[in-house]
């Protein structure tokens, strides 16, 4: 009948094919749910980032002439997952008059670790309550020991008559360069 010496490699090959096929079939079965899950999980990477639009934030005449920063809430439309809110507070900025018709806008988020920077009229500087970063009134780092890697983030400002408009952008924190989150 058949020769057992010849049979071994044939069986070995068949066994390998079976094993390989079982692995591929099993893998395919898992691949579909895992793949579908992964694609959906990666959704935030493909969604357009909100924000970055121009928002009217204040009246120029409301800003004190002495250049003291004034905290202003940025209210605009926001899409949050499934919700669209036509008018919702997005965050806060500091506005500071630097001349008759010029305004500086600073983001309230600390460039160090993302806490909310508070302004203190005494001693006229910004202070972050988390890791004690301090900034001068124009947003620059005023203490060499400050843990912040960069000055407070300035925002683009446009004046239309008495209206102050700001392009409200979020920035990455903890790095030296000012890079918008996208």
């Amino acid at each position, binding site marked *: 009948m058949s020769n057992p010496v010849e049979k071994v490699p044939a069986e070995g090959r068949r066994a390998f094919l079976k094993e390989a096929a079982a692995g591929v079939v099993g893998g395919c079965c898992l691949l579909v749910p895992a793949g579908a899950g992964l694609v959906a999980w990666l959704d935030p990477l493909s969604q357009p980032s909100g924000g970055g639009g121009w928002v009217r934030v204040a009246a120029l005449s409301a800003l004190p002439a002495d250049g003291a920063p004034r905290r202003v809430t940025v209210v605009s439309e926001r899409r949050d997952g499934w919700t669209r809110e036509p008018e919702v507070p997005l965050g806060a900025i500091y506005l500071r008059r630097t001349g008759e018709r010029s305004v500086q806008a600073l983001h309230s988020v600390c460039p160090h670790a993302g806490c909310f920077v508070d302004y203190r009229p*005494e001693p006229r500087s910004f202070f972050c309550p988390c890791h004690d970063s301090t900034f001068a009134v124009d947003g620059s780092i005023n203490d060499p020991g400050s843990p912040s890697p960069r000055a407070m983030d300035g925002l683009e400002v446009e004046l239309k008559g008495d209206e102050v408009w700001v392009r409200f952008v979020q920035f990455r924190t903890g790095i030296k360069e000012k890079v918008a989150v996208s």
Partner: protein
Amino acid sequence: MSRLVDWLDSRTGVRSLVHEVLFERIPGGARWRYVWGSTLTFCFAVQVITGIVLWMAYSPSATTAWESVYYIQHEMTGGWLLRGLHHFTAQAMHVLLVLHLLQVVIDGAYKAPREVNYWFGVVLMLLTLGLGLTGYLLPWDQKGYGATKVATALMGLVPGVGPSLQKLVVGGTEYGNHTLTRFFALHAGLLPALMVGAVAAHVALFRRHGITARQPLRRPEGRFWPDQVLMDGVACLAVLAAVLYLTLRHHGAELHAPADATQPFNAARPEWYFLFLFEFLKLEVLTSWFGHHGELVGAIIVPGAVLGLLAAMPVLGNWRLGHRFNIGFLVVLLLGSLGLTFRSLQSDATNAGYQAAVRGATEASARAVALIKANGGIPPAGAASLLRNDPATAGPRLFAQHCASCHRYDGHDGQGTVAAELPSAPDLKGFGSRSWLAGLLEPSKVTNHAYYGGTKFKDGKMVKYVVGKLPKRHASNPGALEAMIAAVSAEAALPAQRDQDAADAALLEKGRSHVRETFGCTDCHAFRKPDDEASAPDLTGWGSREWVVGVIADPTHVRFYGSRNDRMPSFVKDGRLTDVEAGLLADWIRGDTDAKAVVQRAARR
């Protein structure tokens, strides 16, 4: 009974399984130092039980997360107990983890052939920290929101994939609904599932290798059941007692005011078991040595290296002095962390600004609860909308933002900050009250900076009258001034003076005639009837809500200062404030902040 067990055993082998589980050999007998693993398993069981029930009442979205936790904490029967158990058991787990790690390393239980089991232990530690981190955000209160924002910001520092990773964890570029759904899926789904698997592997491997008996063996060999189980049980009871004590003391767990990205939260701190890392990031060494890379070094590289060393312990332990090095490293790490934690707590304890912020946060959270109770529930837009329409919350902020560059409130800007420069408009604390008006009509006070001192009116007719004619008329008519003040102040109908005004009806009647006749206020002011020739602000309804809103809206209106207005902007007319905001300011200045009244007004809008 025995036949039933026989039947079951022949089909499942349950006897040998139970035997294996219960009658594990313990060389040298049961000891207290072996209890840590069991207490951790117990804690995990508590977290699963309490967590599942919390899950039944929790709703992860930006407008329902805080709200559902509020319900658990303040309205659900036994909810506070459940939440407190979950909250404080999580904290107990972190302490027990450290003790377990210490015991394992000191006893050398991480060495060959137990390396893989030790690594499962390290994984379990990371999973526990991950559960703590993700759980902290879920209440969506100011504290968890602020702390997690920092944590995810640090995640963005991972070289290369950081920003994408951050976006995936946060569920987009901004915190919102998807941040909560993702964190909740991690906290209640993925991480616990991994934990169950890792615990199973950890225990199975532990049983495979047997206990690492502490030498020398002091007693004859013992058995897991009942010797060690009794000790483990007593230890678990002690842990539970500590957790219950903390839960009862705090009546559950703290819930701060709802998250709000537009307000500074100066009480922002991570949970205490992350304080050492928080304090580490504050060290000036980081910036002075690594410059602007300090953050990356402090938040990613150093913790990563420490973790790497922890994982490498079984390998290092093979060296001649390796075991001693491991113990030394662990002790230094522990003392360092304790030192940093202590330093952080101590600097906060002596930081007046932080203490004030914590008090403010506690008040804000109590205020949110009061408003919800008064409203009979939370509106669909969420609890934040209640606070946004609350004069006690929004009033001081609006005042600081729009009014405090000229006015003061009790000497400060509404939020407690005292400016160096003198005010250029009156102090509005108590505006409309008898005492405020009495001060205005006091010759020695009217030109103070709390009244007209900073305004152009300091040289005006009113001041001349107060300093000149008024004292004479006052002197010849005893009691008339008090009556007049009470009458004009009653126009404000301040909530704080309601009872007093009602009791003084006769006095007010007299006072109203003094306004016209004795003092001749109506020579310039209109009072209780139209007067086209009036040249000063209307005293009809002076200081009432409607009057204050009117002045904020447009002080140049003929009813108020007309063309004589001194620098005060027409806030509503010019679009700087909405009607609602002007109303919130008026309510706050008038002290009309009773929660019931506030929600009724909001409902009428």
